[in-house]
């Protein structure tokens, strides 16, 4: 694992010739065919496309949740396409923040504890973990909801907690899968505004899958995926 590889000045994410096949019931399904893609540091990319186009698969590959069948993926100078699952887990913990459509908070933990979760994998002391979680919650404007359980929060608030959890480790990359898919227009705009703010003011690189053109408008650029290939 080489997360500390020196900044080589190139793009943050470098994807070369990536394909992805699945087997389902003996049948081979080819989801991605030869993707080449560069995502520079500080970018905010919206990945669009109809269902089944492979956008979530591509996002999972970038976030290190899955490995490509062929091709290379380099993030921040580190090759992640060949990593074993344990190394990949460590890499994710250090480098990537995730935001999902259904927030995926742990219902039994308070907002504060949910945000603290990724920090459990670091060497930080309990006090330091609490402090950082508080900062992250403040950043998303929920410092007064720290003790609440997810079910006591609104959908928008839950998603903001999820974003706080994603950024608490200060990752180089924020990966969002339909982050506004379950929210109404106004709340969705709030969440997207938050992502924009993180991108502009903190330089966080954001990759976001969405099928909503209005959401995609918040990104710096849009990529369209169709039947497993990038449509420029």
């Amino acid at each position, binding site marked *: 694992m080489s997360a500390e590889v020196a900044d080589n000045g190139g793009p943050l994410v470098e994807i070369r010739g990536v394909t992805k096949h699945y087997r389902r019931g003996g049948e081979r399904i080819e989801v991605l065919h030869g993707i080449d893609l560069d995502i520079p540091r500080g970018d905010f990319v919206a990945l669009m496309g109809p269902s089944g186009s492979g956008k*979530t*698969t591509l996002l*999972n590959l970038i*976030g290190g*949740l*899955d490995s490509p069948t062929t091709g290379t993926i380099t993030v921040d100078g580190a090759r992640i396409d060949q990593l074993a*699952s*344990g190394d990949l*887990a*460590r*890499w*994710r*913990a*250090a480098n990537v923040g*995730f935001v*999902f459509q259904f927030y*995926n908070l*742990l*219902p*039994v*933990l308070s907002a504060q*504890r949910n945000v603290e*979760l*990724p920090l*459990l*994998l670091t060497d930080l002391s*309990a006090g330091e973990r609490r402090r950082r979680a508080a900062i992250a919650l403040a950043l998303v404007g929920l410092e007064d909801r720290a003790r609440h359980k997810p079910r006591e929060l609104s959908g928008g608030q839950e998603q903001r907690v999820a974003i706080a*959890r994603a950024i608490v480790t200060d990752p180089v990359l924020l990966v969002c899968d339909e982050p506004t898919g379950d929210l109404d227009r106004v709340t969705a705009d709030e969440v997207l505004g938050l992502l924009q703010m993180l991108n502009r003011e903190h330089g966080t690189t954001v990759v976001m899958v969405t099928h909503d053109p209005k959401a995609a408008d918040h990104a710096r650029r849009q990529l369209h995926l169709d039947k497993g290939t990038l449509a420029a």
Partner: protein
Amino acid sequence: MRFVPLILAGLFRKKTRTLLTLASVMVAFMLFGLLQAVTAAFESGADAADAKRLLTTARYSIIELLPLSYRARIETVPGVVGVAHAEWFGARYQNESNAFPVFVVDPARYLDMYREFDITPEQRAAFERTRTGAVAGRRLVDRYGWRLGQKLPIASEIHPKADGDMNWEFDLVGILDADDPAVRGNTDMVLINVALFDETRQFGKGRTGWYIIRIADSSQAKTISAAVDRLFANSPDETKTQPEKEFAVGFAKQIGDIGALISRILAAVFFTILILTGNTMAQSIRERIPELAILKTLGFSDARVTALVLGEAGLLLLLGGGAGMGAALAMLPGLNQTTGGRFPPLYVTESTWMIAVLIAVALGLAVGLPPAWRAHRLRIVDALAGHR
């Protein structure tokens, strides 16, 4: 340590379910604690046995009597440092047959032999001095509300007085006690002074039930036993001498099948618990597949997620097991109060605790491994996409 809150949160995700499961685990371990205490009580005789004590009984039947004259002859055997004797009185108290054991003894010799019994020097002196004297175990004294100095009317089912009367009367002059619960069980008895008894009894004068021999070196037990038995070989009263422990173990073994039965009951209990808890754990993990996927997404490795699930199962069993053993422990004083003197004291031994921990860990593993393995193999992409 930092993962403990996470494990606890997972465990108590559904409070009712977890509390009910904990309660059933607790009941199982309480039963374990109590039944083991019963077994320990059966075996307490062997625990309290002294390796430097031998017992000499009539060779063919422990109920036959031996001549009192043997005492002096046994004392001549090299390695023997003390000899005492005792005889079964066959007591009937308040019309209850064998309400408690009563032994006819030579006070000084007997109390010298059983140094583990606590008695004050004044009471001991009174017992030696009083020809009609008797001493009783603390638990019996409490149970019957006896007082020092009172008359104890005890009938014998074996020994009539010279005039044929079976009703005897003794003076309670002392109380025996012991700190060690294994020893305390042995004080559930009444000792009576042989002096007046032997003078007054109708038959069996000059004879006693068995001898207790103290030896200097426990490694010589076999040799000395053989030497004692050789003394009386080919006489009308042949003897059988064996270490006290062997005697007690042999007695405990006579209970035989009941002990095996208790083990089988416990096996059934723990099997039921295994099924019950296993199902709960599996159900709980099944419901939390998406949450486990999130943990993995956040960078928790497969091994760590597996450990969390196992930790949850282990904690469930250890909490329930600990509570159950605690409950058993809390119940024992009350049980001992009600059975006082009728049954040896029940107590939880160290080995019971160790076995309890082993069972809890083993059950935790058995219950936790299937869902843990499931969590281990869980693929984030599938789980998040809703494929199970």
